[in-house]
């Protein structure tokens, strides 16, 4: 199935070539729409600045994702202990989720220093899909298997470790993949909201800064890096997910067409 891989790549290359040609034929100035080659030049010239910014943004994203995973899974396990706990605290998680992060960010920036506020925003958006998916997974355990564990006198902890957590794993991994993308979005949104006070100087701050200076190629270059970072996170989580589910889950089963 080589065509399945080559086709999207060819389409992408054709798109870039079309863009390049359009800019040259129409003589569009770089401060309106830079050609891909010009963006590539900006990427190389500003590499020191941009790679440092990329590192800052990635660090926050990964940290937020790790926090969201730890706290999300811990809360889901806690909720699984009693429906009473779940009914009490789940609505709060929902409220945090449905309030757009870009609206919360300015407030957080007042209470916290810029770096912490950005981390908090990225955490807030990433945490909900992990919590809700893991909670769903923990409550979707096969009833016959639960009976079996009861029959053999399994303790609560044994049920959790040997039965409920493994059967929640595919749900958790689905949540994690969504959370990975959201953590990056949350970090970028918070950096934009932080604006000039963004001392940490992540990629979003560099976009804003380049915008003020009308350095459009650099804006595009930073944008490219954000996309690449998002794709890299997605691929990494996809890889982890496939590895963990490889031999047993239906989602990893090859089907002949």
């Amino acid at each position, binding site marked *: 199935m080589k065509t399945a891989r080559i086709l999207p790549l060819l389409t992408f290359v054709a798109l870039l070539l079309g863009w390049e040609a359009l800019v040259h034929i129409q003589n569009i100035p770089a401060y309106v729409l830079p050609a891909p080659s010009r963006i590539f030049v900006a990427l190389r010239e500003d590499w020191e600045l941009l790679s440092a910014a990329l590192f800052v943004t990635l660090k926050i994203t990964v940290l937020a994702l790790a926090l969201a995973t730890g706290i999300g899974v811990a809360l889901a396990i806690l909720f699984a202990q009693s429906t009473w706990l779940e009914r009490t605290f789940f609505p709060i998680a929902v409220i945090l989720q449905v309030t757009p992060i870009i609206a919360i960010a300015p407030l957080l920036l007042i209470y916290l220093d810029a770096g912490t506020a950005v981390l908090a925003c990225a955490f807030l958006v990433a945490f909900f899909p992990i919590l809700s998916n893991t909670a769903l997974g923990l409550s979707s355990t*096969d009833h*016959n*298997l639960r*009976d*079996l*564990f*009861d*029959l*053999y*006198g*399994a303790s609560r902890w*044994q049920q959790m470790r*040997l*039965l409920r957590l*493994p*059967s929640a*794993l595919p749900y958790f991994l689905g949540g994690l993949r969504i959370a990975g993308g959201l953590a990056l979005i949350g970090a970028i949104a918070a950096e934009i909201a932080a604006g000039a006070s963004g001392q940490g100087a992540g990629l979003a701050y560099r976009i804003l800064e380049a915008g003020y200076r009308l350095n459009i190629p650099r804006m595009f270059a930073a944008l490219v890096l954000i996309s690449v970072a998002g794709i890299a996170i997605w691929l990494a989580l996809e890889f982890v997910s496939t590895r963990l589910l490889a*031999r*047993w*889950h*239906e989602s990893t*089963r090859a089907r002949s067409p």
Partner: protein
Amino acid sequence: MSLLSLSQIGKTFPNGTRALDQLDLAVSRGDFISLLGPSGCGKSTALRLIAGLERADSGTLTWDEAKPDIGFVFQDPTLMPWANVFDNVFLPLRLKGVTRADATPKIMDALTRVGLGDFADSFPRELSGGMKMRASIARALVLRPALLLMDEPFAALDEITRLKLNRDLLELQAELGMTVIFVTHSVYESAYLSSRICVFSNRPGHIIETIDVGPSGPRGEEFRLTSAYLETCQRASAALEQAMERA
């Protein structure tokens, strides 16, 4: 020698369904008892009560000695999909705190008995329906239970697999000296397997007829051709029809 007896057992579910009413059943060691009846007649509930997965509202369930180790086989193989066959069969021992090293000979013995000795490393999704059920039976046998409870275990299997498993089950019972209580809605299956058939009637579930078939033990395919087998089938069918009419 008696193993357990149920006396005047009643059970009503929270939704108001009266599942069992005045159920009496005496089980002796070495029995192979089939609970035969239409769907929803409470035979699975009776099995779950014996396993201790449900509590009766009324009546008494008495074990002759202490409650023995029980193996339970569900209609679905109910294997953990994330664990290979070995680890699935290891489960009952693991929950009892037995180490993997101590458990290994017992697990391999159980797997060999059901004919899965070469499939310890396979995952459930790599097995056929019949093999999954064999793995499920191996898991139930690994504790060497005195009592094996089976809830329509072969209902979803094809005819040939089913006949083979029926034959193997009788051999296993004889080898391991188990008592078996087997829920089914198949007249032919119950007539082939059982030493005694208890025909259940619909809601509320109770036994309307008990048919003694003969001593338990391995039976060849030729047993299905004997006049005794055909007579048992006829009696069981008649009783089952009667049970359906009452519903």
